[in-house]
């Protein structure tokens, strides 16, 4: 059995988690809420992160709109995702929640996090 310590990143509390791992069985302690337990298991099996960045506007020179992945994506694909986002241009007007890239890398939609007129 393996004992792993980590900090939960779900919220500003930053709970100190202890995970006892025995193969595919995990016992998590130190978490204040259920999201902590899920985070610990995800982090050891398939770590994910929400990507937030900006996309250039094709029809508004020098202007950008803030975007995020609609749900967390594989941590290992963050740089691949950045390369896709940085070669994409969006067209204004845009409303919060508009899908900018559908099903990016087969993981999540990239959606607008701000309005652009």
């Amino acid at each position: 059995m393996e004992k792993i310590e980590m900090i939960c990143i779900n919220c500003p509390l930053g709970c100190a988690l202890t995970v006892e791992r025995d193969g595919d069985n995990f016992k998590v302690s130190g978490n204040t809420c259920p999201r902590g337990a899920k985070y610990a298991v995800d982090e050891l099996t398939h770590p994910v992160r929400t990507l937030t960045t900006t996309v250039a506007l094709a029809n508004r020179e020098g202007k950008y709109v803030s975007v995020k992945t609609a749900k967390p994506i594989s941590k290992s694909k963050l740089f691949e995702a950045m390369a896709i986002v940085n070669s994409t241009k969006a067209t204004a007007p845009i409303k919060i929640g508009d899908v900018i890239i559908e099903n990016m890398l087969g993981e999540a939609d990239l959606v607008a996090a701000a309005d652009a007129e």
Partner: protein
Amino acid sequence: MLNYDIVIIGGGPAGMAAAVAAYDNGTENILIVERDHALGGILRQCIHNGFGLHRFGEELTGPEYAARYAKMVEERGIDYIVNTMVLSLEKGENGNVVTVMNSENGVFNIGAKAIILAMGCRERPRGALNIPGTRPAGIYTAGTAQRYVNIKGEMPGKNVVILGSGDIGLIMARRMTLEGANVKVVCEIMPYSGGLNRNIVQCLNDFNIPLKLSTTVAQIHGTDRVTGVTIAKVDSNMRVIPEESEYIECDTLLLSCGLLPENELTAAAGIALDPITGGAVVSETRETSMEGVFACGNVLHVHDLVDYVSEESAVAGKKASDYIKNGAKKAALIGTVKIEKAGGVRYTVPQKIEVTADTEDVKVYFRVGKIFENVTLKVTMDGEQVSAAKKRKMAPGEMEFVKVKKSVLEANPNGTLKIEIVE
């Protein structure tokens, strides 16, 4: 002259939350004055997520959080003017006068029965840090770099050293890395980071960026552009240890060394300031020493989370509205409770409690001056214990609060409330 019941200076999260709360309390004649071209304040450039967990129960990015409040302002039809700078505020014959300026109308006055200060804060710049060395291009505060990257889409540099491990510095370490920069190291002069643990994990550890504690930038090198910095360990008095220094080649130095409430207007109006917070001295209504002038958000004291800014600003907005509804007069004062801090409590907000017939339970916010473990947070009123709570950990980076019951205040309207950490 334009006349409003309440003029709010600053259209960031504090100003918008105060406006909404004042409106919802029945004061509709409100104006927000904003110097940028849109409402939202610094949140507009904080494109990362993590905002709103307390306030909205979900994780939002900065622009999304700002948009929620901007929508509430719009829905209520609250007036606001943008691209407009406030120059001064002073007592007039009928209430207060705010002098403002913009390129369309020049300089003009606005009458205000009440004013809410919501100007936010600024970053501590290089000039305030006294870092030795040359004065080349390539030195930015983390927030300036954030504006370049997130708003203008321009990268301020390629090889980066960051001084200061506050949250903005950590967030920018990740942001610059994702955009292709090489962030070599984050130095922190204190023996602990001022940033949230979650940000050390997801902004530094995720990208193998080293965090060096008790370390500072001892020298900046370069003539036209930064060519490198000398970083060095510091001793317990924060003096550089020359034997433990190293040269790091870089073209950019980002500074994330603390935030300072922006109170030039407040000081010029003669309002009393707290030397520790850098903000105004206020009562529990967030009213300053100038009658009818309230303050909230980061201009009052620097908060950890925008959610807490919104909460405090809603208090200031409601109380400013109560003041208007009372005929622009203060409620009759029964007594003033002094607040004393002891055993490592650095500051409190409010600094005093004015007991009136309307007094409710009061939350007194405070910060400690160093890291404490396994201590008791003791609250007394004139020597009598009000509460005692065991605390596993308290840190300067985390704002704490104690709730003081209305009954305790009513029983001791001229008492001294002492907030103390007992080791």
